[in-house]
């Protein structure tokens, strides 16, 4: 991923990324019009199984998350949707006793391949968590720069921090107090701060695990609008238990039940004319 920002997207997309050892562009590189530059990549799951010890949480899920699209994962609690997305950036394996089977491809690169460093997978596939989790010891500025610093970069990140905060729709609210502690912000602002922190490292895929479930309706709306902006640059995978939210933001929706993928397709079709009985029961509120 030593891509110069001016390069054409098509050319870049033909190249396997993850194994390349220097995954990040230098902060000094000219960033003009960077926010419209898309680095998005397609994520393909092929027969993904995930286990927690003896618990078989995900049972043979195959989905293609298209680049520059928003894909929503819906399903009742415990259906495995969060586990699926945690497999995609290999956070699943952080849990003791957890393991996966099957393939996860970023474009054509298997992220579990032997020559792939898990750290670089996570730099390319970012994640926003359910509960806003800014680093409590850091200022707003340092929180956004944290990803860059944590991956060993030094220097002045002023421009990158500003762009990321603009990209997360938070710049206007915090530009005068970048030195203030990140946890002093409201819940919705904290979550947008976490989004800024995630996009600051310029990933190609952004996973959001119920990003608005801890937020009030107005903050939720802001996050949803933001998702529409972000999909121009990234592949977005969003887990939600809120079906209206899926209907509002997602191009495609996947419905999971008991660890299995029941149905996957365009959001409109899934909500209005689903193929499967279970999907219909769920989206019409008969259970879950």
């Amino acid at each position, binding site marked *: 991923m030593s891509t110069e920002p001016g390069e054409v997207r098509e050319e870049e997309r033909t190249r396997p990324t993850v194994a390349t050892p220097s995954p990040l562009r230098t902060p000094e590189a000219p960033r003009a019009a960077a926010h419209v530059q898309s680095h998005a990549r397609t994520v393909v799951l092929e027969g993904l199984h995930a286990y927690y010890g003896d618990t078989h949480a995900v049972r043979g899920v195959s989905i293609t998350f298209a680049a520059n699209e928003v894909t929503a994962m819906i399903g009742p609690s415990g259906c495995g949707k969060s586990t699926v997305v945690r497999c995609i950036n290999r956070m699943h394996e952080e849990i003791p006793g957890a393991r996966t089977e099957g393939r996860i491809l970023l474009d054509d690169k298997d992220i579990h391949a032997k020559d792939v460093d898990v750290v670089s997978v996570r730099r390319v596939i970012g994640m926003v968590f359910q509960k806003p989790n800014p680093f409590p010891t850091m200022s707003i500025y340092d929180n956004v720069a944290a990803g860059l610093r*944590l991956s060993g970069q030094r220097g002045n990140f002023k421009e990158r921090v500003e762009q990321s905060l603009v990209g997360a729709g938070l710049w206007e609210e915090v530009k005068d107090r970048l030195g203030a502690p990140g946890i002093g912000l409201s819940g919705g602002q904290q979550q947008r701060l976490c989004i800024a922190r995630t996009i600051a490292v310029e990933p190609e895929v952004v996973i959001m695990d119920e990003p608005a479930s801890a937020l009030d309706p107005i903050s939720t709306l802001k996050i949803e609008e933001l998702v529409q902006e972000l999909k121009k640059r990234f592949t977005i995978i969003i887990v939600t238990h809120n079906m209206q939210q899926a209907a509002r933001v997602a191009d495609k929706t996947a419905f999971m039940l008991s660890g299995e993928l029941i149905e996957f397709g365009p959001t409109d079709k899934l909500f209005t004319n689903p193929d499967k009985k279970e999907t219909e029961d769920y989206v019409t509120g008969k259970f879950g």
Partner: protein
Amino acid sequence: MSVAAPRPVSIPPVAARRRRTDRIMRGVLLVMTLIALVPLVLVVYYLLKQGLGAISWDFFTTDPTGRFLGDPGGIRSAIIGTILIVGLATLIAVPIGIGVALYLVEYGKKSWFAQAVRYFVDVMTGVPSIVFGLFIYIVLVLTGVGGTFAGWKGSVALALLGLPIVTRSAEVVLALVPNSLREAALALGAPRWRVVFRIVLPTALPGLITGSLLAVARAAGETAPLLFTAFAVNGTTWDLGQQMNSLPIQIFNDVRQPQANIVERAWGAALTLVAMILILTLIARAIQRRSRYA
């Protein structure tokens, strides 16, 4: 729902028997608390009563003369010795202790090795302090490593004593750092060691300092590990390679003397030691109050 006749509200008063039981139990607990306070108050009372008389400017600025008659001198060498010996012990015990705790929390987790380490740390916490002194006496003093008695050997004994305390408190504080912060950092593509040093340690820092200070305070008051490691001299020395005086040893030696003014010096030294430990504890509490976790 049909419209029913209004039911009278029925919340009976507290039964007399229960009220009586409550009063008795409160009384019993209060008395037990007061009994526990008695020795504490008495210790502070006698320290102040006997010790304040010895305190003067000269008391802190002169060394013990070692004379049986006349002016016994002050406790300067003991204060400096205690600060140096405990300081070196801190430099040894705190980094190692926090390192062990980091290993247990971040890497060892529930592995059998980590569990074994935890068990031995617990056992070490219960080892009497004189055993550490004896151990250093045999290993470092009798073998004559760098001379016989020396201040730094006392430091090693105190460090061994403080190590399990630092480890235990640090482990608790590190475990309190929310896992969501580690996940956030890992998901940003941070290598594990950077997560530990840039996120976990700074977040836990106030608690780590507090725990370390309390361990230091505990070690500062120990006599037994110093008795046959640092030994005692009258004169001030800044060289940890030499025999060194310290407050607990000064108290131990003075209080066995028949002369009233030397015994008074023991009280003064005890008051000084308690005051030093109190200051450490207050600093620890102040830091703890400013922390978000722990």
